[in-house]
């Protein structure tokens, strides 16, 4: 009787020990897999930075160095002196377009979202449904006609052409409308009774209450200007109005020849730097925006 009990206990100990071993193995496997994947994810950034700090002769060595023997900042100076790139100009253009389009877009989005969330008028729901339906259509379909339109308006190679066509984002209107709907209607009625004007109410109550969403929209919109390539390439590809991504690509046209890759990597690193700063300081706003939208920019 007692013998079987001892045996049972021993079996139990063995089983728990086995489970522990399996658990540890699984943990080790999990961490190994995640570490390898994380290395693969990070490596291009690492390679970009160390390549940008190498001398050309070191970069071209047959056995690559994982850390530059001589840290060389010359590449960065060369990037700023590059006559094809004009980095300072590209930077100012992009920031200007980004700020103006973000501000105008926020105004339009807030007004539209307010109308959809708080005001009652005929055809509201039909209009809203129609707007949501347009989100399904790929943007390329609009671009063909928009190119003709801006051409007819005489907007080619201006900042207007980079700002105006993309001011209305149905998705942002939708996002903000949902946010506004959560604010209790009683607040609005109380404000009305007090004689508060709608715009003042919007400014004093609704905007502060939906600030996180507005910040998300601002960041995504700025990032959109920074990363936009196709439309700027199509309509404003002159030195005075070129945006940064387009400028970066056109300055280094020879993608696979024997170009001076360290200089190219220095330029890429400089273009990526603001995005990294945004990532470090404003990550939670981006993640919030992303998990709701799934769209880039």
């Amino acid at each position: 009787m007692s013998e079987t009990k001892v045996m049972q206990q021993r079996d139990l100990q063995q089983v728990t020990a086995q489970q522990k071993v399996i658990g540890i193995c699984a943990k080790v496997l999990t961490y190994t897999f995640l570490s390898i994947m994380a290395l693969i994810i990070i490596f291009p950034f690492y390679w970009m930075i160390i390549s940008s700090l190498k001398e050309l002769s070191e970069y071209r060595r047959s056995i690559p160095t994982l850390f530059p023997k001589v840290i060389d900042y010359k590449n960065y100076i060369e990037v700023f002196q590059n006559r094809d790139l004009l980095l300072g100009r590209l930077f100012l253009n992009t920031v200007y377009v980004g700020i103006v389009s973000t501000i105008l877009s926020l105004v339009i989005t807030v007004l539209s979202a307010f109308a959809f969330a708080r005001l009652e008028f005929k055809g509201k729901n039909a209009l809203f449904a129609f707007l949501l339906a347009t989100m399904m259509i790929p943007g390329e379909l609009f671009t063909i006609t928009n190119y003709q339109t801006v051409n007819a308006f005489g907007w080619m190679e201006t900042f207007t052409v980079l700002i105006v066509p993309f001011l209305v984002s149905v998705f942002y209107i939708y996002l903000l409308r949902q946010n506004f709907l959560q604010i209790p209607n009683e607040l609005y009625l109380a404000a009305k009774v007090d004689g508060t004007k709608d715009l003042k109410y919007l400014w004093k109550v609704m905007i502060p209450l939906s600030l996180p969403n507005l910040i998300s929209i601002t960041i995504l919109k700025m990032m959109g200007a920074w990363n936009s390539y196709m439309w700027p390439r199509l309509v404003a590809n002159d030195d005075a109005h070129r945006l940064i991504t387009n400028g970066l690509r056109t300055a280094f046209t020879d993608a696979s020849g024997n170009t001076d890759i360290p200089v190219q990597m220095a330029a890429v690193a400089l273009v990526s730097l603001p995005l990294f700063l945004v990532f470090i300081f404003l990550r939670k706003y981006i993640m919030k925006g992303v998990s709701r939208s799934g769209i880039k920019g």
Partner: protein
Amino acid sequence: MANESVATKKYYWYEVSKKLDAFAKKIKFDQWKGWIYLSPAIVLLLIFTVWPIFNTVRMSLLEGYTTMTEINGATFQFGFGNFIRVIKYPGFITCLKNTVLLTVLTVPISTFLALLIAVCLNSIKLFSRALQTIFFLPYVTNSIAIGMVFAAMFNMIIGGNARPDSVGIVNNVIEFFFGEGSYINWMNAGSANPDGTASWANFTVMVVYIVWNALPFKILILLGGLQSVNKQYYDAAKVDGTSRARVFARITVPLLSPMIAYVVITGFIGGFKEYSSIVGVFGEGMGPVGNAYALDTMVGFIYRAIGKQEGTASAAALILFGIIFVVTMINLYVSNKKTHY
């Protein structure tokens, strides 16, 4: 005393708001106010969204339409000529093949990897936050800029000798595992292909880059889904002594199926619109040196026809829309049958 005044105040407010509402109703104040608030958005949408929808259909149905000839007063026959021309055009077939191939390869690979990473991230505590941050990093990047980094990593620097001066960091890793001389000319392998098609090596570079780029968003969505799964299911499985693989297949995947369906659908839509990542890696030539447009896609085809052949571009854009629409419908149909809510 204080309560009484609050009550009277409330009643007073109620009365006033009722009167105000009645007044607003009488003059239909809200009716036109809503439209005023929406007017900037509506004007812009009419010009840049609604008109393009009609105009694209119109242009696609006018045979051989171009803006220049229309300005010069030409008239066009009505018909499906543009669509037939696009489908018969060999360049378009290459674009279609490239787009479909890249989508079909990258969506399953990235979804599977993202699922695996999300499950692993969800199962650990130590370093979980730090690893999540790392995995989200590629999202906040410029696809052209990082494409250039990938090109540099895969690129070989060819010198005068039989062996290239530098085979590139990716080939260095391959040679480390498979011995010297096992390097592959990733970037320019297909440059001499006579039929203008890209080499499998070129495609591999694109698949690696697109998957790398697609991971963060998918991980974010799937991890969010995992974190909201009820822990009781796992506790029940633990009590039953269910194996890890079985838990993954029978609990995790079914409970996560709405999120998986979501990332697959958005992945397919994004895949069919692939363009700037290829420009990032291979440059505006969209192919290995000497074999331009070997890696061209549907969107690339449309972009190159803009401002020149609007009829063709419109037809191609509508075909793209049709494909995306059909694939999304199929995805929704399948996921409705397979997903558990």
